[in-house]
């Protein structure tokens, strides 16, 4: 009897990558992907289910499919990509419905993996240089994405307390860079002049996208209940991140950036998340040792992640995008999956 896994946010970068990796695992019998939009990556046997953004149909799906594992990769951590209300629907209401479904009577769910972000620790001058999983944030949460993630984590804690039979892993990732992912940081590093705050050169900690996916799979695969920070080793100054990227910085005034950029942001002229401004002033470090002690091994350090990102950008700038856009052809996939006309290999045992 193999695993039955539900992946939320199938069309997000993480959902797609996790589903792809799960497809290659013969121990996983069923992969169900949930999202509002069609998947953007090539999938072979993942079943895509269209849902509304707050997963109100989730409890029916969980009941009908009897999934034992839920990978919740759909949390929005980049506030520039959508409105505050949409983010609230997805993060808070979506998670609430997810846990309601997972804890319903007769639920088959035995494991939940949640992808959260180190944003929950905030970024302030009073912070410890290395946040541990048990530390509370120092400065109160001011930005909406931070508040929404904190609310999500409070649901996670409640769920863990009420459902001790479920293995719950909450992974907090620091800023991700990598060849394929787009985040506020990678967007900033692709600009001709990289924004920095005059007079500040904070320490940054980064993690490679492959390490993020590997960490999610690690948590799906093994028993690692609890909260874990996921971040590359070492912290490097923002100036050094720019040096590795071969970019020059454009200094922004140290005071009143929020005031200055807010109207521009409303007009859609700049795309600058308020939580990034604090980060560019004070930085953030998280202690990744607990997850290492649980057995996880990283492939990249903080500086190594930046270097990998930069190398991929160089290649892309030279040869253009090496990937063909994938369009999810539902009928075709269904045909391949279910038609008796298709010759299938016997699944590996």
């Amino acid at each position, binding site marked *: *009897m193999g*695993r039955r896994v539900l992946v939320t946010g199938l069309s997000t970068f993480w959902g797609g*990558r996790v589903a792809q*990796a799960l497809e*290659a*695992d*013969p*121990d996983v019998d069923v992969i169900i992907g949930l999202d509002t939009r069609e998947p953007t990556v090539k999938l072979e046997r993942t079943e895509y289910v269209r849902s509304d953004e707050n997963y109100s149909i989730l409890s029916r799906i969980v009941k009908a499919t*009897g999934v*034992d*594992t839920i990978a919740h990769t759909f949390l929005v951590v980049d506030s520039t990509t959508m409105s505050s209300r949409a983010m609230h629907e997805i993060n808070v209401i979506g998670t609430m419905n997810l846990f309601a479904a997972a804890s319903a009577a007769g639920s*088959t769910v*035995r*494991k939940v993996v949640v992808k959260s972000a180190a944003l929950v620790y905030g970024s302030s*001058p*009073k*912070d*410890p*240089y*290395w946040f*541990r999983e048990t530390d509370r944030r120092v400065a109160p949460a001011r930005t909406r994405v931070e508040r929404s993630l904190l609310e999500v984590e409070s649901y996670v804690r409640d769920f863990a307390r009420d459902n001790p*039979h479920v*293995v719950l892993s909450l992974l907090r990732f620091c800023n991700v860079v990598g060849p394929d992912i787009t985040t506020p940081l990678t967007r900033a590093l692709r600009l001709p002049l990289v924004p920095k*705050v*005059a*007079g*500040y*050169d904070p*320490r940054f900690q980064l993690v490679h996208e*492959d390490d993020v*996916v*590997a960490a999610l*799979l*690690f948590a799906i*695969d*093994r*028993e690692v209940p609890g909260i874990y920070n996921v971040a590359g*080793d*070492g*912290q*490097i*100054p923002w*100036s*050094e991140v720019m*040096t*590795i990227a071969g970019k020059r910085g454009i200094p922004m005034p*140290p005071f009143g950036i929020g005031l200055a950029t807010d109207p521009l942001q409303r007009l859609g002229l700049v795309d600058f998340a308020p939580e990034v401004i604090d980060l560019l002033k*004070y930085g953030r*470090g998280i202690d990744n040792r607990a997850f290492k002690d649980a*057995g*996880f*091994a*990283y*492939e*990249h*350090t903080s*500086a*190594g992640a*930046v*270097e990998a990102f930069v190398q991929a950008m160089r290649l892309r700038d030279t040869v253009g995008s090496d990937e063909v856009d994938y369009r999810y052809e539902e009928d075709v996939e269904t045909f391949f999956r279910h038609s008796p006309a298709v010759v299938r290999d016997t699944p590996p045992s």
Partner: protein
Amino acid sequence: MADEDATDEPQGPRTTTAEIVPLRLPPVADEEPEPLEDPRTGDVDEWGRSERVRALVRKAYDPMYRNWFRAEWDGLDKIPTEGGALLVANHAGAIPSDAPTIMHGVETELERPVYGLADHFFKSAPVVGTLWSRTGGVVAHPDNAYRLLHDQNQLVLVFPEGSKGPGKTYNERYRLRRFGRGGFVEIAMRAGVPIIPIAVVGAEESMPILFKVPSVARALGAPYFPVTANMALGPLGALIHFPAKFKLRVLDPVTFPDVEPDQPRYSRSRIMDESEAIRQQIQEALFDMLRQRRSVWFG
């Protein structure tokens, strides 16, 4: 039936993933993993300290240290040359000159770095905060101190008086303020490192505070805003220390052999007693040094 029962079992750890997950999911490592490639271009460490910047500052500060303050150490051999230790000193002068003097002295004489813990106010200030951080300043947070002392065996300098030490006016000189809440003792206990008290004479007179302007301090978000005697020297005088003679006496290390490190909590009364004892030691050493001091400028 057996299959159905199996589904209700919690999933045990499996061992087959290494071959089948294509993302190079590493197996649980038994041996020490190989160090990862780390393409660093600078030498700024995880605390923001740069040895290159520090060397530059040492070069620039050395004439100040030798010819201006003419710093003189007594008992420098009591500071260990390896292993973590918490240096604890009295703190004075509107812009404290004791911190750079102690850090410079220990780094040049013992050739090992010193990290100076200070108020987060420094980190929040642009330019100053970055420079402070590059030269070994670290925000005073128990976790930071523990990691430096216990995990990395470094020397850490702390002024338990906090900003109350340099923020006192000239007529209160060499009278130690409260040593916080004894947090430095708790950190040393938890990290299992000795406390090394240092008594500093000279910093008080290098930049004496005549009076303070609380309203400006509030507006700037600074711990205090001083009006110093040095300001009489003109606009730049506010930043220049008087050439008071510096004398530094290292006292006997204080250890806690009967206290287990890494405990979640320590006896509050024990902490306060030890903290007060160390304060007393430094205070007595200061009075002793002041008794022997013939001149503020020549020692």
